[in-house]
């Protein structure tokens, strides 16, 4: 991914991501989030991770965000007119943000010195490569994620039955 492509995507992406929290209307916020996720999928496409891009759109943009919109419409949420009450959240957010940026900087420093120019393996990002990684190297985290999701589903069913 070259310099121009990166910034042509990155600048709108950041602006749209800020709009998610800045826009007063909940429906527009959700739509900006959809757009953010869509642009992220485009990023994955440019990074040759086609499978991840497809999953990003199917799962996040196509399913989860539709449910968000569904709930917003069902509750008929209006635009946010009152100022948000502050509980020292601003300060916590600033501290969290600084820590995140520091971590990212550290990671960037470490990765750029080691594997900056290494070529991608032959079938990088294909369904086969991702699948075999998931079911061999990352089998345990994969199964644990599955169990977590199952717990969430069972919890939702129990709550709905009350």
């Amino acid at each position, binding site marked *: 991914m070259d310099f121009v492509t990166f910034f042509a995507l990155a600048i709108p992406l950041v602006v749209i991501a800020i709009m998610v929290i800045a826009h007063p209307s909940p429906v527009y916020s959700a739509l900006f989030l959809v757009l953010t996720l869509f642009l992220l999928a485009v990023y994955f496409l440019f990074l040759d991770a*086609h499978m991840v891009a497809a999953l990003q759109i*199917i799962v996040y*943009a*196509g*399913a989860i965000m*539709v449910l968000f919109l*569904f709930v917003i*419409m069902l509750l008929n949420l209006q635009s946010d007119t009152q100022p948000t009450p502050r509980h020292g959240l601003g300060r916590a957010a600033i501290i969290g943000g600084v820590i995140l940026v520091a971590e990212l900087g550290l990671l960037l420093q470490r990765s750029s010195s080691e594997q900056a120019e290494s070529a991608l393996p032959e079938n990088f990002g294909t*369904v086969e490569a991702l699948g075999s990684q998931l079911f061999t190297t990352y089998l345990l985290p994969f199964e644990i994620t599955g169990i977590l999701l199952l717990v969430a589903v069972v919890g939702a069913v129990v709550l709905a039955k009350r």
Partner: protein
Amino acid sequence: MIDFLITFSLTLLMVLMVLNLGGLLLWVERKGSAVLQDRIGANRAAVFGKLPFNLGIVNTLVADPIKLFTKEDFVPPGADKLLHTLAPAIGLVPLLVTFIVIPFGDVLIIGGREITLQAANLNIGILYVLAMVSLSVYGVVLGGWASNNRWALLGGIRGSAQMISYEIPLGLALIGVVLAFGSLDLQEITRAQGALIGGWIPAWGIVYQPVAFLIFLAAGIAESKRIPFDLPEAESELISGYFTEYSGAKQAMFMLGDFVEAIIVAGLITTLFFGGWQIPFLLRDGFHFPWGGTLALPSLLVTLLQVGAFTLKVLFFCWLQIMIRWTLPRFRYDQLISLGWKILLPLALANVMLTALIILLFE
């Protein structure tokens, strides 16, 4: 450069074909419904004077679009203008580009150059179709919300719940097919269906995955929001559901979107379950009959036959969907949801498990 031009023209061809077929289906629907209900149907705008019969082609293909495009484009007061205008496009555009991964022929050989008749050969194949179809939900949801109308909002909410519910059995039915053919690429799946089982039965998807076919047909019709699954528009309950407040060209886009979805469902059923462009016993150099005897054909003719076979199959399944639409009554909403979650989903899961087990045991 030439490669780019070929891809570009194939893509353009696919999009234009889908658009035109969508318009054509409007005629088939109006005249076909008349045939099914023993009416005459659209017959007003005739150009050739009094014929013994009037096919209503002028009516539906010329007069109807002119009427739709010259109507007042009305945005109701209190509606969200931007989203009200964007919604039809958001619903239609992802559907128009879906067809590019569906192969409509094997290879076309021109001047020693082999052109695969599939506009985009993606590694993710079917997943691309699912991604695009899942994006088209936003047209329904936003159209319903932005209209500032209760019926429209109800239609939008119904639409979002219905389309999310039926995407799951749809995807699981596809997994059965993917397991059977071992590929996500629709061209490879179609090529695999050219094999013969026991020397004479074409190895079409329906032979391996009959249950998946039924689930896919039901879920596909539910995704395209047509009777018996047309709860989001349900004229008798919600006026027109999510596009109650739409008129003119925007309403035409919503209507066209429904037809395009029907074409996509027909195209996928053809490709996954009925051999795509395959004609039984037709190989690249001509017919090879199982009872002996061959009929050699030039390569161009074979390609034309394949494209013709694909088109005929797609048209047949479009017609099947229109027939279903005009013969069945509409579900109740709770019936719709419980059919999706309590019947189709377990059935699809069982189908996947059984398919995987059989593949594991015999291969």
